[in-house]
């Protein structure tokens, strides 16, 4: 682990010295005020600056899956797995709480090579999604998950640093193209050291803790996680993003995911705040209020009674008649 890290920082130092001083003056041809001033290259390297977002179902589940009624389900009328219904806490969301299907983003055979004991934890994670997924508590999302959550992020590419600001939870990430040793403690977002492989940005990410997840399906890792990300511009508005994931504590072999990231091409696009720890307060601390807003707590357990009062005239058959 440490040996690999040293090698990569040496390579980065070499790459940084070798950076060309050529500034491209060519402009991208896409629409939008901000984009008209963005050169296609910065110091001779492809310019990834701008606001991007994945447009897929990876945050629900990295693997191929059919649509499901909800992230957490319970047995319905039939005992079959394919006939389950949404679990109580998400029932009132109706179809908005459902999980869209996907062909998955896991490369090769589409399998995540869990060790048997780790697969068991993954399955338990999925069952206890509400209590375990760090996203629900607004914790830092980790990498690579931050790249494909349904929120935009902004890349600011300079010569020695590439900064990524994620809308979700004000998360920050600095990719060091110059030599900066890793932190003495592990982190949620990892320590990112980048280098150029031709026109591809290759980022080595280490120093993770074991707290973040890959998705809402309970896919997880340990603090031995090591990522190699590859960013390649396919067109001015599309990045092809690939990640090789290695974690000998959890997986039997390295595996990889890949997906396009799309430019948010709206001419007035800008990152807004999504300071979600405030939004998660009731979920996390509601049981500790002097006068609870949710009326049914049994200790730390929230008992969700669903009372859906339909205003007069809005019953579904009346709604059609309007």
């Amino acid at each position, binding site marked *: 682990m440490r040996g690999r890290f040293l090698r990569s920082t040496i390579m980065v130092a070499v790459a940084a010295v070798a950076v060309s*001083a050529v*500034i491209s003056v060519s402009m991208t041809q896409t629409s939008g*005020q*901000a984009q008209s*001033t*963005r*050169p296609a290259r*910065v*110091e001779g390297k492809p*310019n990834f*600056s701008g606001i991007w977002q994945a447009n897929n179902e990876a945050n629900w589940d990295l693997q191929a899956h059919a649509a499901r009624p909800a992230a957490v389900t319970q047995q319905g009328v039939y005992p079959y797995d394919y006939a389950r219904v949404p679990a109580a806490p998400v029932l009132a969301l109706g179809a908005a709480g459902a999980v869209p299907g996907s062909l998955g983003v896991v490369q090769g055979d589409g399998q995540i090579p869990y060790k048997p004991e780790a697969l068991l934890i993954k399955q338990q994670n999925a069952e206890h999604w509400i209590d375990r997924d*760090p996203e629900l*508590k*607004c*914790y*830092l999302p980790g990498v690579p998950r931050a790249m494909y959550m349904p929120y935009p992020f*902004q890349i*600011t*590419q*300079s*010569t020695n*640093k*590439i*900064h990524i*600001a994620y809308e979700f939870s*004000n998360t*920050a*990430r*600095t990719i*060091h193209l*110059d030599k*900066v*040793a*890793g*932190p*003495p*403690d592990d*982190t*949620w*977002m990892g*320590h990112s050291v980048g280098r150029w492989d031709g026109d591809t940005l290759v980022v080595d990410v280490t120093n993770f803790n074991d*707290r973040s997840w890959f998705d809402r399906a309970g896919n997880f890792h340990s603090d031995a996680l090591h990522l190699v990300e590859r960013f390649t511009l396919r067109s001015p508005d599309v990045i092809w993003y690939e990640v090789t994931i290695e974690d000998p504590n959890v997986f039997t072999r390295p595996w990889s995911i890949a997906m396009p990231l799309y430019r948010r091409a709206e001419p*007035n696009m*800008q*990152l*807004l*705040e999504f*300071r979600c*720890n*405030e939004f*998660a*307060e009731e979920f*996390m*601390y509601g049981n*500790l*209020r*002097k*006068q609870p807003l949710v009326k049914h707590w049994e200790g730390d357990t929230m008992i969700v009674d669903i009372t859906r009062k339909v205003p007069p005239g809005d019953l579904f058959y009346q709604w059609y008649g309007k």
Partner: protein
Amino acid sequence: MRDRYAGAMIMVVIAAVAVSVVISASGTPTSAEAPSKTPWGDPDLQGIWTDESDTPLQRSPRYATQEFFTEAQRAELDKLRSAMIGRDRRSERGSEADVAGAYNAVFTPLKRTGARTSRIVDPPNGRLPSLTPEAQKIAAAEREFRVALLQSTETCKNKEAACNGGKYDPTPSPRFAELPPRYNTARMNRHDGPEDGTPPDRCLTGGLPEFGGISFRRVVQTPGGISIFYDVGQGQGWQRNIVMDGSPHLPASIRQWYGDSRGHWEGDTLVIDVTNFSPKTDFQGARENLHLVERWTRTGPTSLAYEVTIEDPTMWTRPWTARQEFTRQSDQENRIYYEPRCIEGNFGLPGLLHGRRTEEFAFAEGRAPDPRTRDSIKGVEFEQDPLQ
């Protein structure tokens, strides 16, 4: 244990995640040199920046219109202030004040006295302008509410400063059942729910303007774009992506903790106009009407000046301007401070709430006194910094 739990936890969460910026021994700025430029020709503001010396926001009246300290004054102040460092401010071991006052010199480091007598450069007396009658009324209402929640505690019984304007009454105030006069952003002797905590207790520390103290900011630039990442200590931080395309501010209906930042270059100065603040933010009492005009100028190889004009006609009778000098810091020595994390380890807030609920339960059963008769937000009595 249970008794001191609530008071202690609020400090513990902050202490547990507290950081201080590692200040490298950098050379003296040589301001005569031309400001550096990025390869694409913009002034280069990039790097990690912080204030390496202490300057109070307001000038002590004893310096009147003196804008800069003399060298002799700085040396004298440094001598007085360094005598304070290392003082263990914790009182009797094992007492409530001991645990609640877990902040000691380790968490309140002092830096060398800065060149200026105040960050405020306008008005010329270095003091905040007077409040509007409306703002005075709000401030009085806020204070009255907070003092009412202390009326039945030792703090009022002993006529301590926190009770100024109030008087001791052994019966807890009926105002415990009231909402504060406006959205709470300050500490109060009540912990009914998360909203009774301060923004830092809730991992919601804001905001702008940000002058330093124990914070740093990293600036990264690209052609046509600037990103500023802040770590303000205590596990909290945020980012600004300055919109540089000349477009107007966000619609007034969109309010944000860090406002909406629109920038442009004026010569070598980055000028950022900030509006659209949320009513949940508070800077010296100013909230959604706060308007900032920031000016960021590189003044030397390792120095950067940050000047901000602060305006809120509902708050102050005139705009005012403050200035702070930042020094560039080492990437390597500050490499662990890129990841503000607070809510991920915030055991303090639930601990505080749980502690109060436990005390209320014990009181209801007749096993303990009414928790409303105890001041749970009592801080440590710090020595007065002679700089202030």
